């Protein structure tokens, strides 16, 4: 579903798009929790990096996009995939390396993509997405039909050379790219207070001639509003911008991370500010939805996640020789 708004931002959101956003956030949370537990049970090869806690960012931003817009993501990409409309069953199948996976089992968690939905891939290289999103912005400018590209990145990536190169390039070429920083306070085990020379990533935007904004990434309405303005600006041909969302990941950098670098108290304080619970409270208090309705959505999502795992576990693995295909379009 795409949400189209004619100006006015979050205050003109009707019930249907709000419930859709709620459902998206719940889908991401449940997907990640299930992926984490299946990973712990040894069912998922490789690595997984869970997005739980950050849902408001992916959903708040992607609610402003259509299938014709592009996003790039990073290693913690499941949330962006779901928010951009990638099929959940195909995602689970990809985690399990099945032929029915979104990437036919060739990519795994860190490389899930659906280029036809404008999802240009999760990415295993920190900072890898900046130039790709900038290039998608170049295509968008060339196509002249108002498309935009969004680059999701973490606080760690904000120090990579590609961040600086890409913001500069998007600025001088006035490309329709929105750079969305998911500042969760840690680059792996290293806190932002150590690794960044500025306090807020948004401060760097001025150096690249574009507006930079910091919002509360735990509030889906705040994210939606800021993204709405940034996307509208880009569609109008006014160029790139940077939105920093302060957020928090509930789990470690990767599953298996003992997370000794954060305190239990800190985690508990963020659990108290859970973005999904906050949205639920707002929807109920403003009589937009009843708790019964929202419970029904939660249950529905749980069933769909369950079905996706059942489907994926039953799906066949690719034949070993399939390792040799899809390197090139053609290779004489």
């Amino acid at each position, binding site marked *: 579903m795409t949400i189209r708004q004619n100006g006015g931002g979050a205050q003109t959101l009707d019930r249907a798009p709000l419930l859709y956003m709620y459902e998206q956030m719940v889908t991401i949370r449940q997907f990640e929790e299930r992926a984490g537990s299946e990973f712990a049970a040894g069912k998922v090869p490789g690595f997984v990096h869970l997005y739980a806690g950050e849902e408001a960012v992916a959903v708040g931003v992607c609610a402003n996009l259509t299938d014709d817009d592009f996003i790039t993501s990073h290693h913690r990409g499941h949330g962006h995939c779901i928010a951009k409309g990638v099929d959940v069953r195909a995602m689970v199948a990809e985690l399990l390396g099945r032929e029915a996976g979104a990437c036919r089992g060739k990519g795994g968690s860190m490389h899930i993509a659906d280029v036809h939905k404008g999802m240009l891939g999760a990415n295993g290289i920190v900072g890898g997405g900046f130039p790709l999103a900038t290039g998608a912005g170049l295509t968008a400018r060339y196509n002249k039909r108002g498309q935009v590209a969004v680059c999701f990145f973490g606080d760690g990536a904000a120090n990579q050379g590609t961040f600086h190169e890409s913001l500069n390039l998007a600025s001088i070429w006035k490309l329709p790219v929105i750079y969305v920083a998911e500042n969760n306070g840690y680059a792996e085990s290293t806190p932002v207070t150590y690794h960044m020379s500025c306090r*807020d990533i948004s*401060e760097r935007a001025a150096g690249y001639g574009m507006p930079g904004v910091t919002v509360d990434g735990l509030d889906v*309405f705040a994210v939606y*509003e*800021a993204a709405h303005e940034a996307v509208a600006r880009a569609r109008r041909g006014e160029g790139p911008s940077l939105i920093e969302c302060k957020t928090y990941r509930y789990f470690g950098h990767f599953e298996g991370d003992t997370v000794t670098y954060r305190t239990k108290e800190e985690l508990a304080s963020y659990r108290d500010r859970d973005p999904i619970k906050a949205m639920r409270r707002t929807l109920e*208090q*403003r009589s937009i939805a009843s708790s019964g309705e929202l419970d029904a959505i939660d249950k529905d999502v749980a069933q769909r996640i369950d079905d996706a795992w059942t489907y994926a576990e039953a799906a066949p693995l690719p034949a070993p020789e399939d390792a040799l295909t899809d390197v090139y379009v053609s290779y004489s």
Partner: protein
Amino acid sequence: MAQPLVGIIANPASGRDIRRLVAHGTVFDNNEKTAIVRRVLLGLQAVGVTRVAYMPEHDFGILPRALDGLSGIIAEPLAMPALGTSIDSTRAAQLLAAADAGCIITLGGDGTNRAVAKGCRTVPLLPISTGTNNVFPSFLEGTIVGMAAGLVARGCIDTDAIRRFPWLEVLVDAKTREHALVDVVISSHPFVGARAIWDLSAVREVMLSRVAPATIGLSALGGALLDHTSEADNLPGMHISLGQGGKQVLAALAPGLVSWVAITAYRRLAIDDGAQFQPGIGTIALDGEREIELTTTSVVEVRLRSDGPFVVDVNAALIAAARAGYLHRT
């Protein structure tokens, strides 16, 4: 007698909200705020004030960075947890008032100063603008602020240079919820969201503690409505209702954003005057930021009160200090 104490509350989070995107809000990066504070400290030291207490932060640390390499200043963080929210600014102001600070220097916008004003009691403020709209604080040079604040803390300044401003009390369902320094806005925006207000189409009622056309924000709306009646000019506040059908006024609502705004009614407010509303679903914005979400039955009352914060007029303060001989020696 204890050495005069000056407090510094520098908000690292000011000046990066959505008005950088929807208007042309200035960016004050934290490295520049650090430079401003350093100038303040050097100004304080120059007039003989070396005791400083400051609001701690949990991440960046503007004050520790500004102090790095400076000798001769005794600066301590206030004994409070740093939560990284506006509560920190209020708590810091409370602690500074309890410690008999002679002056509190703030770095921030209207929002920061609102938080400080809720805690500072009668300690005079010297606000340096590093936020967006800046009706309350001004763009002031840090060195001069340091000198003026130091002289205030030492008791060298004539109280004519320190003025008390009225402010607005907000009650929801008969209980005092909040105060605002400059404006209270009731709109039908249902969510707090990104907080700032830049689109007035959903705004219904505006309550102002001052009317001033030469400012940015909703107080500019009030300023544009000034008329020739001398009696009305003595009343500090204003209540404006927005909507089509009446006159339109031109006001600078945000940096670079000047609009014609349609209003249906307005009147000046005396101290303790105000109004009551039952607006239904919507939000109350304080000093340009949505803060309180309302339900269908919420009853909102806004009153202009006289017990707002004391603010130092830097120009008047330094002129007074010069005349009193504090800037000479033989």
